[in-house]
Protein backbone atom coordinates (compact mmCIF):
# COMPACT_ATOMS: atom_id res chain seq x y z
CA UNK A 1 0.00 0.00 0.00
CA UNK A 2 1.38 3.35 -0.98
CA UNK A 3 1.82 6.09 1.61
CA UNK A 4 -0.74 8.20 -0.31
CA UNK A 5 -3.33 5.42 -0.07
CA UNK A 6 -2.70 5.05 3.64
CA UNK A 7 -2.99 8.79 4.12
CA UNK A 8 -6.27 8.81 2.22
CA UNK A 9 -7.66 5.97 4.33
CA UNK A 10 -6.55 7.63 7.56
CA UNK A 11 -8.15 10.95 6.65
CA UNK A 12 -11.32 9.21 5.46
CA UNK A 13 -11.62 7.35 8.75
CA UNK A 14 -11.17 10.63 10.63
CA UNK A 15 -13.86 12.29 8.50
CA UNK A 16 -16.17 9.33 9.07
CA UNK A 17 -15.70 9.56 12.81
CA UNK A 18 -16.31 13.30 12.70
CA UNK A 19 -19.46 13.09 10.59
CA UNK A 20 -20.87 10.11 12.49
CA UNK A 21 -20.30 11.79 15.86
CA UNK A 22 -21.73 15.10 14.72
CA UNK A 23 -24.79 13.43 13.19
CA UNK A 24 -25.50 11.28 16.24
CA UNK A 25 -25.08 14.11 18.72
CA UNK A 26 -26.82 16.53 16.39
CA UNK A 27 -29.81 14.25 16.00
CA UNK A 28 -30.04 13.85 19.75
CA UNK A 29 -29.97 17.60 20.16
CA UNK A 30 -32.53 18.01 17.39
CA UNK A 31 -35.08 16.16 19.50
CA UNK A 32 -34.47 18.78 22.16
CA UNK A 33 -34.65 21.58 19.60
CA UNK A 34 -37.95 20.23 18.30
CA UNK A 35 -39.40 20.28 21.79
CA UNK A 36 -38.01 23.72 22.49
CA UNK A 37 -39.29 25.20 19.24
CA UNK A 38 -42.70 23.66 19.75
CA UNK A 39 -42.77 25.01 23.29
CA UNK A 40 -41.81 28.52 22.23
CA UNK A 41 -44.42 28.53 19.52
CA UNK A 42 -47.00 27.60 22.13
CA UNK A 43 -45.81 30.18 24.68
CA UNK A 44 -44.23 27.49 26.84
CA UNK A 45 -40.64 27.04 27.99
CA UNK A 46 -39.96 23.47 26.95
CA UNK A 47 -37.64 21.05 28.75
CA UNK A 48 -35.37 22.99 31.08
CA UNK A 49 -34.79 20.66 34.02
CA UNK A 50 -32.01 18.31 32.94
CA UNK A 51 -28.77 20.18 32.55
CA UNK A 52 -28.44 23.83 31.61
CA UNK A 53 -31.56 24.90 29.66
CA UNK A 54 -32.44 21.23 29.25
CA UNK A 55 -29.33 20.46 27.20
CA UNK A 56 -28.93 17.05 28.83
CA UNK A 57 -32.54 16.08 28.15
CA UNK A 58 -31.59 13.96 25.09
CA UNK A 59 -29.06 12.08 27.24
CA UNK A 60 -31.73 11.43 29.86
CA UNK A 61 -34.16 10.28 27.18
CA UNK A 62 -31.54 8.02 25.64
CA UNK A 63 -30.66 6.50 28.99
CA UNK A 64 -34.33 5.89 29.69
CA UNK A 65 -34.82 4.23 26.33
CA UNK A 66 -31.82 1.96 26.83
CA UNK A 67 -33.00 0.86 30.27
CA UNK A 68 -36.61 0.30 29.29
CA UNK A 69 -38.01 -3.14 28.65
CA UNK A 70 -38.07 -4.32 25.07
CA UNK A 71 -41.40 -5.85 24.23
CA UNK A 72 -42.13 -8.20 21.39
CA UNK A 73 -45.70 -8.75 20.24
CA UNK A 74 -46.50 -12.45 20.59
CA UNK A 75 -47.52 -12.81 16.95
CA UNK A 76 -44.82 -10.61 15.45
CA UNK A 77 -42.33 -11.95 12.98
CA UNK A 78 -39.41 -11.69 15.32
CA UNK A 79 -36.52 -11.45 12.89
CA UNK A 80 -38.11 -8.87 10.65
CA UNK A 81 -39.30 -7.04 13.73
CA UNK A 82 -35.68 -6.79 14.87
CA UNK A 83 -34.39 -5.97 11.41
CA UNK A 84 -36.79 -3.13 10.61
CA UNK A 85 -35.32 -0.43 12.90
CA UNK A 86 -31.85 -1.15 11.54
CA UNK A 87 -33.14 -0.99 7.97
CA UNK A 88 -34.57 2.46 8.48
CA UNK A 89 -31.61 3.64 10.57
CA UNK A 90 -28.74 2.62 8.30
CA UNK A 91 -29.83 4.38 5.06
CA UNK A 92 -30.58 7.52 7.05
CA UNK A 93 -27.04 7.59 8.41
CA UNK A 94 -25.49 6.49 5.12
CA UNK A 95 -26.74 9.63 3.43
CA UNK A 96 -24.71 11.92 5.62
CA UNK A 97 -21.59 10.50 3.99
CA UNK A 98 -22.01 12.25 0.63
CA UNK A 99 -22.96 15.79 1.65
CA UNK A 100 -19.98 18.19 1.42
CA UNK A 101 -20.00 20.31 4.55
CA UNK A 102 -17.13 22.74 3.98
CA UNK A 103 -14.68 24.05 1.43
CA UNK A 104 -11.84 21.65 0.59
CA UNK A 105 -9.13 21.71 3.23
CA UNK A 106 -5.52 22.01 2.05
CA UNK A 107 -3.65 19.15 3.72
CA UNK A 108 0.07 18.56 3.76
CA UNK A 109 0.52 15.29 5.61
CA UNK A 110 3.68 13.23 5.72
CA UNK A 111 4.69 11.19 8.73
CA UNK A 112 5.75 7.72 9.74
CA UNK A 113 3.87 5.81 12.38
CA UNK A 114 5.95 2.88 13.72
CA UNK A 115 5.20 -0.45 12.05
CA UNK A 116 2.30 1.02 10.03
CA UNK A 117 4.73 2.85 7.82
CA UNK A 118 4.53 6.17 6.12
CA UNK A 119 1.33 8.18 5.68
CA UNK A 120 1.13 10.94 3.13
CA UNK A 121 -1.55 13.21 1.73
CA UNK A 122 -0.90 16.31 -0.30
CA UNK A 123 -3.37 18.72 -1.80
CA UNK A 124 -6.94 19.78 -1.13
CA UNK A 125 -9.02 17.29 0.81
CA UNK A 126 -12.74 17.50 -0.05
CA UNK A 127 -14.67 17.91 3.19
CA UNK A 128 -17.03 15.04 2.54
CA UNK A 129 -16.70 11.43 3.61
CA UNK A 130 -17.23 10.03 0.14
CA UNK A 131 -16.99 12.37 -2.82
CA UNK A 132 -19.15 10.14 -5.00
CA UNK A 133 -19.45 11.10 -8.67
CA UNK A 134 -23.14 10.10 -8.74
CA UNK A 135 -23.95 12.81 -6.19
CA UNK A 136 -27.63 13.31 -5.54
CA UNK A 137 -28.61 10.17 -7.41
CA UNK A 138 -26.99 8.31 -4.53
CA UNK A 139 -29.11 10.28 -2.08
CA UNK A 140 -32.30 9.57 -4.00
CA UNK A 141 -31.47 5.87 -4.26
CA UNK A 142 -30.49 5.35 -0.64
CA UNK A 143 -33.27 7.46 0.82
CA UNK A 144 -35.77 5.21 -0.96
CA UNK A 145 -34.26 2.27 0.90
CA UNK A 146 -35.61 3.72 4.12
CA UNK A 147 -39.08 2.72 3.03
CA UNK A 148 -38.15 -0.96 3.46
CA UNK A 149 -37.53 -0.42 7.15
CA UNK A 150 -40.87 1.29 7.58
CA UNK A 151 -42.79 -1.23 5.49
CA UNK A 152 -41.18 -4.18 7.30
CA UNK A 153 -41.83 -2.58 10.67
CA UNK A 154 -45.47 -2.20 9.74
CA UNK A 155 -45.82 -5.70 8.41
CA UNK A 156 -43.80 -7.65 10.98
CA UNK A 157 -45.61 -6.08 13.94
CA UNK A 158 -48.73 -8.00 12.92
CA UNK A 159 -50.93 -5.17 14.10
CA UNK A 160 -53.52 -3.40 11.98
CA UNK A 161 -52.36 0.07 12.99
CA UNK A 162 -48.74 -0.67 12.24
CA UNK A 163 -49.62 -2.31 8.94
CA UNK A 164 -51.76 0.61 7.80
CA UNK A 165 -49.06 3.04 8.87
CA UNK A 166 -46.43 1.10 6.97
CA UNK A 167 -48.59 0.92 3.85
CA UNK A 168 -49.31 4.61 3.98
CA UNK A 169 -45.62 5.38 4.40
CA UNK A 170 -44.76 3.27 1.38
CA UNK A 171 -47.41 4.79 -0.85
CA UNK A 172 -46.55 8.30 0.27
CA UNK A 173 -42.79 7.98 -0.11
CA UNK A 174 -43.02 6.32 -3.50
CA UNK A 175 -45.49 8.94 -4.73
CA UNK A 176 -43.44 11.88 -3.62
CA UNK A 177 -40.22 10.39 -4.88
CA UNK A 178 -41.56 10.98 -8.38
CA UNK A 179 -42.05 14.69 -7.79
CA UNK A 180 -38.74 14.87 -5.94
CA UNK A 181 -36.79 13.22 -8.73
CA UNK A 182 -38.46 15.39 -11.37
CA UNK A 183 -37.78 18.55 -9.38
CA UNK A 184 -34.06 17.78 -9.44
CA UNK A 185 -33.84 17.49 -13.23
CA UNK A 186 -33.63 21.30 -13.67
CA UNK A 187 -30.66 21.24 -11.28
CA UNK A 188 -29.06 18.67 -13.53
CA UNK A 189 -29.85 20.82 -16.58
CA UNK A 190 -28.28 23.84 -14.94
CA UNK A 191 -25.08 22.29 -13.66
CA UNK A 192 -24.69 19.53 -16.23
CA UNK A 193 -23.49 17.24 -13.46
CA UNK A 194 -24.98 15.30 -10.57
CA UNK A 195 -22.01 15.45 -8.21
CA UNK A 196 -22.38 17.79 -5.28
CA UNK A 197 -18.95 19.32 -5.79
CA UNK A 198 -19.81 20.31 -9.37
CA UNK A 199 -23.20 21.67 -8.35
CA UNK A 200 -21.67 23.81 -5.61
CA UNK A 201 -18.98 24.97 -8.04
CA UNK A 202 -21.60 26.02 -10.54
CA UNK A 203 -23.54 27.90 -7.88
CA UNK A 204 -20.36 29.70 -6.86
CA UNK A 205 -19.80 30.77 -10.46
CA UNK A 206 -23.42 31.80 -11.02
CA UNK A 207 -26.17 32.35 -8.52
CA UNK A 208 -27.50 30.05 -5.81
CA UNK A 209 -29.97 27.79 -7.55
CA UNK A 210 -32.86 28.97 -5.43
CA UNK A 211 -33.05 32.06 -7.63
CA UNK A 212 -32.76 30.59 -11.13
CA UNK A 213 -34.59 27.37 -10.16
CA UNK A 214 -37.10 28.61 -7.63
CA UNK A 215 -39.92 26.23 -8.46
CA UNK A 216 -37.62 23.24 -8.30
CA UNK A 217 -36.69 24.32 -4.82
CA UNK A 218 -40.34 24.70 -3.89
CA UNK A 219 -41.32 21.26 -5.18
CA UNK A 220 -38.23 19.67 -3.66
CA UNK A 221 -38.93 21.19 -0.27
CA UNK A 222 -42.53 19.95 -0.20
CA UNK A 223 -41.52 16.49 -1.41
CA UNK A 224 -38.79 16.51 1.21
CA UNK A 225 -41.38 17.03 3.91
CA UNK A 226 -43.35 14.10 2.56
CA UNK A 227 -40.24 11.93 2.20
CA UNK A 228 -39.29 12.40 5.83
CA UNK A 229 -42.86 11.75 7.01
CA UNK A 230 -42.96 15.08 8.76
CA UNK A 231 -46.04 17.16 9.34
CA UNK A 232 -48.06 18.20 7.42
CA UNK A 233 -47.47 14.83 5.75
CA UNK A 234 -47.07 12.58 8.78
CA UNK A 235 -49.90 10.31 7.67
CA UNK A 236 -47.89 7.15 8.50
CA UNK A 237 -47.98 8.15 12.17
CA UNK A 238 -51.31 9.99 12.34
CA UNK A 239 -51.84 9.41 16.05
CA UNK A 240 -55.53 10.25 15.88
CA UNK A 241 -56.16 7.36 13.49
CA UNK A 242 -53.25 4.95 13.77
CA UNK A 243 -51.97 5.41 17.35
CA UNK A 244 -48.34 5.69 16.26
CA UNK A 245 -48.41 4.09 12.83
CA UNK A 246 -45.61 1.76 11.90
CA UNK A 247 -43.82 1.99 15.25
CA UNK A 248 -46.91 1.32 17.38
CA UNK A 249 -45.52 -1.99 18.63
CA UNK A 250 -41.97 -0.83 19.17
CA UNK A 251 -40.58 0.03 22.55
CA UNK A 252 -37.38 1.19 24.18
CA UNK A 253 -34.28 1.55 21.99
CA UNK A 254 -35.89 0.06 18.89
CA UNK A 255 -38.43 2.85 18.95
CA UNK A 256 -35.57 5.29 19.43
CA UNK A 257 -33.93 4.03 16.27
CA UNK A 258 -36.98 5.03 14.24
CA UNK A 259 -36.83 8.40 15.87
CA UNK A 260 -33.14 8.85 15.15
CA UNK A 261 -33.75 7.75 11.57
CA UNK A 262 -36.50 10.33 11.18
CA UNK A 263 -34.30 13.15 12.41
CA UNK A 264 -31.32 11.95 10.40
CA UNK A 265 -33.58 12.06 7.35
CA UNK A 266 -34.62 15.59 8.23
CA UNK A 267 -30.95 16.56 8.46
CA UNK A 268 -30.29 14.96 5.09
CA UNK A 269 -33.19 16.67 3.35
CA UNK A 270 -32.18 20.01 4.85
CA UNK A 271 -28.57 19.41 3.81
CA UNK A 272 -29.80 18.58 0.30
CA UNK A 273 -31.85 21.78 0.15
CA UNK A 274 -28.83 23.73 1.35
CA UNK A 275 -26.43 22.06 -1.05
CA UNK A 276 -28.59 22.02 -4.14
CA UNK A 277 -30.36 25.35 -3.83
CA UNK A 278 -28.47 27.48 -1.33
CA UNK A 279 -24.93 27.00 -2.49
CA UNK A 280 -23.89 24.36 0.04
CA UNK A 281 -20.95 25.72 1.99
CA UNK A 282 -20.62 28.70 -0.36
CA UNK A 283 -20.27 32.12 1.25
CA UNK A 284 -21.33 34.90 -1.14
CA UNK A 285 -18.28 36.62 -2.58
CA UNK A 286 -15.01 35.19 -3.76
CA UNK A 287 -13.18 34.99 -0.45
CA UNK A 288 -14.09 31.36 0.29
CA UNK A 289 -12.64 30.04 -2.97
CA UNK A 290 -9.05 30.84 -2.08
CA UNK A 291 -8.65 27.65 -0.06
CA UNK A 292 -7.20 27.57 3.41
CA UNK A 293 -7.88 26.39 6.93
CA UNK A 294 -9.74 29.56 7.83
CA UNK A 295 -11.88 29.31 4.69
CA UNK A 296 -12.73 25.69 5.50
CA UNK A 297 -13.78 26.59 9.02
CA UNK A 298 -15.81 29.61 7.91
CA UNK A 299 -17.57 27.73 5.13
CA UNK A 300 -18.25 24.85 7.50
CA UNK A 301 -19.82 27.27 9.95
CA UNK A 302 -21.86 28.91 7.20
CA UNK A 303 -23.08 25.55 5.96
CA UNK A 304 -24.11 24.72 9.52
CA UNK A 305 -26.03 27.99 9.80
CA UNK A 306 -27.93 27.37 6.58
CA UNK A 307 -28.61 23.78 7.65
CA UNK A 308 -29.92 24.92 11.01
CA UNK A 309 -32.18 27.45 9.33
CA UNK A 310 -33.78 24.75 7.22
CA UNK A 311 -34.11 22.39 10.16
CA UNK A 312 -35.80 25.19 12.04
CA UNK A 313 -38.01 25.77 9.01
CA UNK A 314 -39.07 22.10 9.06
CA UNK A 315 -40.00 22.39 12.72
CA UNK A 316 -41.70 25.71 12.11
CA UNK A 317 -43.91 24.12 9.46
CA UNK A 318 -44.59 21.17 11.72
CA UNK A 319 -45.96 23.32 14.51
CA UNK A 320 -47.95 25.52 12.15
CA UNK A 321 -49.82 23.30 9.72
CA UNK A 322 -52.34 20.57 10.48
CA UNK A 323 -52.16 17.13 8.90
CA UNK A 324 -53.40 16.49 5.37
CA UNK A 325 -56.20 14.09 4.66
CA UNK A 326 -54.85 11.04 2.87
CA UNK A 327 -56.56 11.64 -0.47
CA UNK A 328 -55.49 15.29 -0.35
CA UNK A 329 -51.93 14.15 0.19
CA UNK A 330 -52.04 11.88 -2.83
CA UNK A 331 -53.80 14.52 -4.92
CA UNK A 332 -51.14 17.08 -4.03
CA UNK A 333 -48.34 14.73 -4.94
CA UNK A 334 -49.70 13.39 -8.22
CA UNK A 335 -51.99 16.12 -9.49
CA UNK A 336 -50.16 19.26 -8.40
CA UNK A 337 -46.48 18.73 -7.70
CA UNK A 338 -45.75 16.25 -10.47
CA UNK A 339 -47.37 18.31 -13.26
CA UNK A 340 -45.67 21.45 -11.94
CA UNK A 341 -42.31 19.69 -11.89
CA UNK A 342 -42.84 18.28 -15.39
CA UNK A 343 -43.95 21.58 -16.85
CA UNK A 344 -41.07 23.29 -15.11
CA UNK A 345 -38.57 20.97 -16.76
CA UNK A 346 -39.98 22.03 -20.15
CA UNK A 347 -39.79 25.70 -19.21
CA UNK A 348 -36.23 25.41 -17.97
CA UNK A 349 -35.15 23.38 -20.99
CA UNK A 350 -36.57 26.01 -23.32
CA UNK A 351 -35.17 28.86 -21.28
CA UNK A 352 -31.67 27.39 -21.09
CA UNK A 353 -31.72 26.64 -24.82
CA UNK A 354 -32.92 30.16 -25.52
CA UNK A 355 -30.34 31.77 -23.27
CA UNK A 356 -27.38 29.71 -24.38
CA UNK A 357 -28.02 29.15 -28.06
CA UNK A 358 -30.38 31.87 -29.21
CA UNK A 359 -29.19 34.76 -27.06
CA UNK A 360 -25.69 33.30 -26.85
CA UNK A 361 -25.05 34.09 -23.17
CA UNK A 362 -22.35 31.85 -21.72
CA UNK A 363 -21.21 33.79 -18.67
CA UNK A 364 -22.61 31.76 -15.71
CA UNK A 365 -23.63 34.85 -13.77
CA UNK A 366 -25.55 36.39 -16.66
CA UNK A 367 -27.09 33.03 -17.50
CA UNK A 368 -28.32 32.64 -13.92
CA UNK A 369 -29.68 36.17 -13.88
CA UNK A 370 -31.57 35.61 -17.13
CA UNK A 371 -33.04 32.38 -15.73
CA UNK A 372 -33.92 34.24 -12.55
CA UNK A 373 -35.93 36.64 -14.68
CA UNK A 374 -37.77 33.72 -16.26
CA UNK A 375 -38.39 32.30 -12.80
CA UNK A 376 -39.94 35.45 -11.41
CA UNK A 377 -42.56 35.23 -14.15
CA UNK A 378 -43.10 31.48 -13.68
CA UNK A 379 -43.28 31.73 -9.90
CA UNK A 380 -45.77 34.59 -10.06
CA UNK A 381 -47.87 32.56 -12.46
CA UNK A 382 -47.79 29.36 -10.40
CA UNK A 383 -48.42 31.06 -7.08
CA UNK A 384 -51.14 33.15 -8.64
CA UNK A 385 -52.81 29.94 -9.80
CA UNK A 386 -52.29 28.28 -6.42
CA UNK A 387 -53.72 31.32 -4.70
CA UNK A 388 -56.76 31.54 -6.97
CA UNK A 389 -57.60 27.91 -6.29
CA UNK A 390 -57.12 26.38 -9.71
CA UNK A 391 -54.99 23.51 -8.34
CA UNK A 392 -56.27 23.19 -4.79
CA UNK A 393 -59.71 24.34 -3.87
CA UNK A 394 -60.89 25.93 -0.66
CA UNK A 395 -64.23 24.79 0.66
CA UNK A 396 -66.28 27.71 -0.68
CA UNK A 397 -65.18 26.99 -4.24
CA UNK A 398 -67.07 23.73 -3.97
CA UNK A 399 -70.25 25.54 -3.08
CA UNK A 400 -71.61 25.27 -6.60
CA UNK A 401 -71.49 21.49 -6.54
CA UNK A 402 -72.86 21.12 -3.03
CA UNK A 403 -75.74 23.45 -3.85
CA UNK A 404 -76.51 21.39 -6.92
CA UNK A 405 -76.43 18.27 -4.77
CA UNK A 406 -78.87 19.76 -2.28
CA UNK A 407 -81.15 20.75 -5.09
CA UNK A 408 -81.03 17.27 -6.54
CA UNK A 409 -81.67 15.73 -3.12
CA UNK A 410 -84.74 17.87 -2.57
CA UNK A 411 -86.05 17.18 -6.05
CA UNK A 412 -85.58 13.42 -5.92
CA UNK A 413 -86.22 13.00 -2.19
Amino acid at each position, binding site marked *: MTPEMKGFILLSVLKMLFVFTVIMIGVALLTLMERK*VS*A*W*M*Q*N*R*RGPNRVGWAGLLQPAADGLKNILKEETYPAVANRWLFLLAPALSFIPALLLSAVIPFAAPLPVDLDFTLGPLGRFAYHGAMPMVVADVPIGFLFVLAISSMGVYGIALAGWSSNSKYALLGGLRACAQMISYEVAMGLSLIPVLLMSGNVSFAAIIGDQQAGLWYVLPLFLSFFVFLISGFAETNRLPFDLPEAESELIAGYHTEYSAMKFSFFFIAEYANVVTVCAMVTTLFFGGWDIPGRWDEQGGVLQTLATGGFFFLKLMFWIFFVM*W*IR*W*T*LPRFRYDQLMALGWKVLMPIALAYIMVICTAIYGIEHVAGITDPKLRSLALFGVNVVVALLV*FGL*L*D*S*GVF*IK*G*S*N*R*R*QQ*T*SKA*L*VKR*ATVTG
Partner: protein
Amino acid sequence: MAIGVKVMKRPEREVSYVRATLKGMALTFKHMFEPKVTMQYPEEKSTTEWSISQRWRGTHRMLTDEQGRSKCVACGLCPQICPSNCIKLVPGEDEHGNRYPLIYEIDEFRCIFCGYCQEVCPEEAIHVGVHFENAEYSRARFVYDLERLQSQTHAVSTLWDPTDARGE
Protein backbone atom coordinates in the same frame (compact mmCIF):
# COMPACT_ATOMS: atom_id res chain seq x y z
CA MET B 1 -68.85 15.80 0.01
CA ALA B 2 -71.89 14.80 1.97
CA ILE B 3 -75.22 16.13 0.84
CA GLY B 4 -76.45 19.35 2.40
CA VAL B 5 -73.28 20.42 4.17
CA LYS B 6 -73.50 24.10 4.89
CA VAL B 7 -70.56 25.95 3.36
CA MET B 8 -69.79 29.47 4.43
CA LYS B 9 -69.38 31.95 1.64
CA ARG B 10 -66.09 33.61 2.37
CA PRO B 11 -64.10 36.16 0.41
CA GLU B 12 -61.28 34.84 -1.73
CA ARG B 13 -58.49 36.01 0.56
CA GLU B 14 -59.81 33.86 3.41
CA VAL B 15 -59.90 30.57 1.55
CA SER B 16 -56.53 30.64 -0.21
CA TYR B 17 -54.30 27.90 1.18
CA VAL B 18 -51.18 29.79 0.16
CA ARG B 19 -52.11 32.86 2.15
CA ALA B 20 -53.45 30.80 5.03
CA THR B 21 -50.14 28.95 5.29
CA LEU B 22 -48.12 32.15 5.29
CA LYS B 23 -50.45 33.71 7.81
CA GLY B 24 -50.16 30.67 10.08
CA MET B 25 -46.39 30.70 9.86
CA ALA B 26 -46.27 34.39 10.72
CA LEU B 27 -48.46 33.69 13.71
CA THR B 28 -46.37 30.81 15.07
CA PHE B 29 -43.19 32.81 14.52
CA LYS B 30 -44.63 35.74 16.43
CA HIS B 31 -45.55 33.44 19.29
CA MET B 32 -41.92 32.43 19.75
CA PHE B 33 -41.12 35.84 21.19
CA GLU B 34 -44.15 36.26 23.37
CA PRO B 35 -43.83 35.95 27.14
CA LYS B 36 -43.99 32.37 28.33
CA VAL B 37 -46.95 31.29 30.40
CA THR B 38 -45.30 28.27 32.02
CA MET B 39 -45.32 28.29 35.80
CA GLN B 40 -42.06 26.77 37.07
CA TYR B 41 -43.96 24.52 39.46
CA PRO B 42 -41.72 23.30 42.24
CA GLU B 43 -40.04 26.70 42.54
CA GLU B 44 -43.10 28.87 42.13
CA LYS B 45 -46.47 27.61 43.26
CA SER B 46 -48.52 30.61 42.35
CA THR B 47 -48.06 33.51 40.00
CA THR B 48 -49.87 36.78 39.56
CA GLU B 49 -52.02 35.11 36.92
CA TRP B 50 -52.81 31.98 38.80
CA SER B 51 -52.99 30.80 42.36
CA ILE B 52 -54.83 27.90 43.88
CA SER B 53 -58.45 28.59 44.74
CA GLN B 54 -59.36 29.28 48.35
CA ARG B 55 -62.24 26.84 47.85
CA TRP B 56 -59.88 23.99 46.96
CA ARG B 57 -60.81 20.86 48.91
CA GLY B 58 -57.64 18.92 49.62
CA THR B 59 -56.39 16.69 52.40
CA HIS B 60 -57.86 17.31 55.81
CA ARG B 61 -56.77 19.28 58.79
CA MET B 62 -58.10 19.12 62.36
CA LEU B 63 -58.12 22.48 64.15
CA THR B 64 -57.09 22.69 67.79
CA ASP B 65 -58.04 24.95 70.70
CA GLU B 66 -55.67 27.12 72.78
CA GLN B 67 -54.48 24.15 74.84
CA GLY B 68 -53.55 22.27 71.72
CA ARG B 69 -56.36 19.76 72.08
CA SER B 70 -58.49 18.95 69.07
CA LYS B 71 -61.72 20.88 68.78
CA CYS B 72 -63.53 17.66 67.96
CA VAL B 73 -66.27 16.66 70.40
CA ALA B 74 -66.77 13.25 68.81
CA CYS B 75 -70.39 13.98 67.94
CA GLY B 76 -70.25 11.47 65.10
CA LEU B 77 -71.77 13.71 62.44
CA CYS B 78 -68.82 13.54 60.04
CA PRO B 79 -68.65 9.71 59.78
CA GLN B 80 -72.42 9.79 59.51
CA ILE B 81 -72.52 12.18 56.54
CA CYS B 82 -69.35 10.96 54.84
CA PRO B 83 -70.52 9.49 51.48
CA SER B 84 -67.42 7.37 51.02
CA ASN B 85 -67.34 6.15 54.59
CA CYS B 86 -63.68 7.07 55.08
CA ILE B 87 -63.78 8.53 58.59
CA LYS B 88 -63.28 6.21 61.55
CA LEU B 89 -64.31 7.76 64.88
CA VAL B 90 -64.26 6.10 68.32
CA PRO B 91 -65.59 8.54 70.94
CA GLY B 92 -64.25 8.79 74.45
CA GLU B 93 -65.30 10.79 77.54
CA ASP B 94 -63.08 12.35 80.20
CA GLU B 95 -63.83 12.74 83.92
CA HIS B 96 -65.65 16.07 83.35
CA GLY B 97 -68.01 14.45 80.89
CA ASN B 98 -66.37 16.12 77.86
CA ARG B 99 -66.44 13.97 74.79
CA TYR B 100 -63.30 13.68 72.70
CA PRO B 101 -62.17 11.33 69.93
CA LEU B 102 -60.20 8.30 71.10
CA ILE B 103 -59.51 7.33 67.54
CA TYR B 104 -60.04 9.69 64.62
CA GLU B 105 -58.74 8.40 61.29
CA ILE B 106 -59.39 9.53 57.74
CA ASP B 107 -58.49 7.25 54.87
CA GLU B 108 -57.45 9.81 52.25
CA PHE B 109 -57.58 7.17 49.52
CA ARG B 110 -61.25 6.53 50.13
CA CYS B 111 -62.08 10.21 50.60
CA ILE B 112 -63.77 11.91 47.63
CA PHE B 113 -63.07 15.41 49.00
CA CYS B 114 -66.67 16.51 48.95
CA GLY B 115 -66.16 18.68 52.03
CA TYR B 116 -69.36 17.49 53.74
CA CYS B 117 -67.41 16.76 56.94
CA GLN B 118 -66.35 20.39 57.17
CA GLU B 119 -69.87 21.59 56.38
CA VAL B 120 -71.52 19.36 58.97
CA CYS B 121 -69.03 19.87 61.81
CA PRO B 122 -70.72 21.87 64.62
CA GLU B 123 -67.41 22.76 66.27
CA GLU B 124 -65.57 23.76 63.08
CA ALA B 125 -62.96 21.18 63.94
CA ILE B 126 -62.43 19.06 60.83
CA HIS B 127 -61.62 20.94 57.63
CA VAL B 128 -60.61 20.10 54.12
CA GLY B 129 -57.41 21.95 53.28
CA VAL B 130 -55.98 24.03 50.48
CA HIS B 131 -53.22 21.54 49.83
CA PHE B 132 -52.26 19.16 47.06
CA GLU B 133 -48.73 17.85 47.58
CA ASN B 134 -49.52 14.50 49.17
CA ALA B 135 -46.89 12.10 47.87
CA GLU B 136 -45.94 9.26 50.21
CA TYR B 137 -43.89 6.10 49.92
CA SER B 138 -46.54 3.67 51.15
CA ARG B 139 -50.29 3.29 51.04
CA ALA B 140 -50.46 2.98 54.81
CA ARG B 141 -49.26 6.57 55.15
CA PHE B 142 -52.48 7.77 53.57
CA VAL B 143 -54.57 6.87 56.60
CA TYR B 144 -54.22 10.11 58.54
CA ASP B 145 -54.60 9.73 62.28
CA LEU B 146 -55.64 12.44 64.72
CA GLU B 147 -52.11 13.54 65.48
CA ARG B 148 -51.28 13.91 61.81
CA LEU B 149 -54.50 15.80 61.12
CA GLN B 150 -53.72 18.20 63.95
CA SER B 151 -50.16 18.81 62.86
CA GLN B 152 -51.08 19.97 59.35
CA THR B 153 -50.44 23.67 58.92
CA HIS B 154 -51.82 24.48 55.49
CA ALA B 155 -54.78 26.82 54.98
CA VAL B 156 -58.28 25.41 55.37
CA SER B 157 -60.79 25.52 52.59
CA THR B 158 -63.37 28.26 52.28
CA LEU B 159 -66.25 26.20 51.11
CA TRP B 160 -68.72 27.45 48.58
CA ASP B 161 -71.29 29.70 50.20
CA PRO B 162 -74.66 29.59 48.40
CA THR B 163 -75.59 33.03 49.72
CA ASP B 164 -72.38 34.47 48.25
CA ALA B 165 -72.11 32.39 45.12
CA ARG B 166 -69.38 34.42 43.47
CA GLY B 167 -67.24 34.72 46.58
CA GLU B 168 -67.41 38.51 46.69
